[in-house]
């Protein structure tokens, strides 16, 4: 797994994760376009995922 190329994916709640580049992300997940090693993907997520609340909760003051 460590050697595989990964990509950053995001779901409708704007939660981020990583998935194998050579596999389609599961339903409900979209590739953001960022690819790299696992570590590179996680570093990227650290910079873009700034509000970790699910998007459904954010708008309602919770």
């Amino acid at each position, binding site marked *: 797994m460590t050697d595989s190329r990964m990509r950053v994916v995001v779901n409708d709640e704007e939660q981020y994760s990583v998935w194998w580049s050579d596999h389609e992300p599961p339903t409900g997940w979209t590739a953001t376009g960022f690819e790299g090693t696992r570590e590179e993907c996680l570093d990227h997520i650290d910079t873009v995922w700034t509000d970790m609340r699910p998007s*459904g909760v954010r708008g309602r003051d919770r």
Partner: protein
Amino acid sequence: MRPPASPVRAPLSPAQERLWFLQRLYPDDASYTMYLVRRLRGPLDRAALEDAFARVVARHESLRTRFAEVDGVPWAVAAPPGTAVPAPGTDEPVRWPDAADREAAERLVAARVNAPFDLADGVPLRVAVIRIAPDDHVLCVTMHHIIGDGWSLNVLLDDLAECYTARLGGREPRLRPLPVQPTDYARWQRRRAERAVPYWQERLADPPPPEPPFPTVGAGETERTGTAGSGAFHVVRLGEEATRGLERLAREHRTTLFAVLMAAYQVLLHRHTGQTDLLVGTAVAGRERVELEPLVGYLAQTVVLRGDLDGDPAFTDLLARTRTEALSAMSRPSVPFERIGHPPDALMPTMLILHNQDTGPAGPFGDLAVSLFPDGFRQAKVDLLVEAWRDGPELAVSFCYDVSRAGAGEAGRETVRRLADRFLLLLGSVAAEPFRRISELRLWTEADRADIRALAGDGADPGGPLVPEMLSEAARSTPDAAAVICGDTVLSHRELHARAEALAAALGAGGVRPGDVVGVCLPRSVEAITALLAVWRAGAAYLPLDPDDPDERLAFSLADCGVTHVITRRELPDGFTAIDPATGPGAVGSAVGTGSPVAPPARPADLAYVITTSGSTGRPKGVAVEHAAIAARVRWMREEYGLTPGDHVVQFASLSFDTHLEEVFPALAAGAALVLLPEGAATLPDLLASPAGRRVTVLDLPTAYWHHLVEEIDQIAWPSSLRLVILGGEQASGAAVARWHDRFGAGVRLVNTYGPTEAAVIATATELARDDGGPAARPPIGRPVGATAVHLLDGRGAPLPKGAVGELVIGGAGVARGYLGRPARTAAAFVPDPGGPPGARRYRTGDRARWRPDGRLEFLGRIDDQLKVRGFRIEPGEVEARLLAHPEVGQAFVTVRAERLVAYVTGTAGHEELRAHVARALPRHLVPTAWVTLDALPLTARGKIDRAALPEPERAFAPADVPPRTDAEKLVAGIWEELLGVPGVGAFDDFFALGGHSLFATRVAARLRRTTGVEVPVRTVFEARTVAELASAVEDLLIAELDGMTDEEAERLLASPET
């Protein structure tokens, strides 16, 4: 050539030495009995067959060779040709038993092929011709492997047939001359082996832990006692097309069918264990020189091949690696493992051998028709031996498994049947698509796929009320029932809610807003329970904090989780607002109802609580869990634990540990009562003995603490009302489970649970029945709980069926939101869940587990928890399980300190006894070298073993610092010094560390016997590794001997020379 009439005395080949030693170590082991069993139909000339056999014996030196021991060193002693060689225990070379029918003959054969040989007792050869009818016989030749290998059996049959045929025809047999004899071969092989030692030392350095591709029946039950009948067989056939495909693949890659099978078998093992570095044994005939071909002797070699499956190679690439490895390893003589610093049978859990199957003989056997006859062999040399041979256009594949490891009866058969089916599927896939990566080769059968779906559980969340609603409902339906009992204080559900409401109002007035995280930093108390409810009523989530934490850690956690308000009585660092838990007491007892919420009700995706988990390294992380997750758990627990208003549940866990949720909320939601340990000194046993404790019905305990209680099971005043005990947090000990059932029978349910905080308290659970206990058992962690899916995934995220080891991954309703303020760590641990609803996530636990044959999960430790000592990889759990299998060990914890494997134990067992106990079952590198006995293992506030509080083992002995102290120690040390050529041996020097190995062990035993007159078993020398241990063992034996003697005998013994 030597003169023909004198016996030949010669050293053994290294492989013979190894077998000789193993037979001394396990005298009852029949697994090295070789056999030739053939049915002979037609007119049989008894005199001609006896004469033919005598000629064969005269021809082959091996068949006249017995093994003598001189000062612990074995020698082969071959009688000159022409000497009559009776079978051991008889005075005739060939026995002629009668059998009433075929079945009787099968029984006679089975008895012979499953009988061990005593190598001290003459030539290890037995020949019988069983007569079923005048023209129907069964030839049954058995011999110890030390004088003949599989090839030899074919030679023997050919020569016997030729001699018999020649005799009937009145001519001399036509046999190839034998330019060399096995003793010549042994000398030659010894020289070659010596040169090969460096190769094997390097090749087998840092060996991977031996892992068979199935769950073993109890981690502790690995003791090889050589019990007869420990093996069982399962034979399958690979079809013609796939067999041809494999042969074609071998040709195209300029290699052999053996290399293809070996590479495929390595894939099978890898896909079951996850290991990318693995060892598989095989046998090579060792007949590469033409003059060796017609010999009867042990020329075959057991060779270990090391597979490198790193990087998910294409099968064809793996095949190239395997080919190189096989060429390199099989061109060298093998060296007994113990010669390169390993125990005799530790490296190799499994073997694969490709045979040339001959039913033979090559020529006629007089007028007899020769055919195979069932041999009934039931011996297992290793955990799993796979043998293949061409059977017409097909390939037959036999799986011989050790039933003491894979399981006896139907369970073991089912495990191996599945394994065999997978291997066939894999071989077909290799034949059809060899360019695929090894992770993509087909392996799992239709049955496996169905299992994967059925085992995973259903992660769908049926929904329902959230926990605050459940609590309000209980307060409405059972307002006056006791909710919290603490010493003399009893609070009803109505009162509890009233207090919570008042405190919630105070929180709101103090500035807490819905969506905030509020700290709760209180000891276990009525106030603490009130505070949890109050935070929810204020629309916030709670972060429980340990009041004993230092300021620095507290400040870190508060800042890290974005907390500004804390319900506490303690001083807070600057910048945080403390709210007194007794705020708003005026409201208590007032007419405030339970139905007027302070804040709007929580929604499923709102945050319910945050639990700080201290990672193994680095900073603590706040795990954020939403209301829907904990609601799903509370619903399941309430139902599954059968909680009703009559229950009294002890609130034992510290609030900073998420087990408190399992105790508090299902009970309160059911209208039951929580029983608190009064603040201060009271322990759980004290509470149970108090009036409030006498009514306790449910206990939820950290497993390590429960082990501690079970040790004192008879001293504890267990309430008669107790009906359920829930465990979690660590591997449960099989011995403790057995003890529990001995005490309580079926009267108290014992439920084991497993789950990380990241999946809302628990994810799997199971009842632990009596059958789940026992010294060798590793009690399971169960099946997925409600609204939970559990998958075991391989390195590529593919789900695994029963028997394969993978990472335990949890999906479903309980999956946490993530780690507060840690996007990267959250994204790494919470990953897309293809099995869940769109966009669902699942949590990777980092735990290794396996589905057992019964569909429950077996916990196998952390993926990253392997320790290393002197380059050896060590799974502490494996050593702990073995220690716990000892009847006098209560608890055990194994870790590495200063390059030493340290065992911490409780109980009465002596360290030398325990060391021997572990050494009997585990490889030497898994035997702890430092031992500490404690009254109890120190536990953290969370009930986990407190590593920091474990005392350092006593200063490592610089062994030579302690000179031998007693006469016995001086005697042992003197013998070691002489045999090992090491001066200044100390009382705590380790035999193996000084360069001793198994053959030195037999010499030490011989020397001790000569010096003391006491028969010291080789096994004792092998297991009592220090001078002190061995000396003490010798003294014990001496005392035992004296006890059984007359006074004169005793005096004579004690006055014997050389002491």
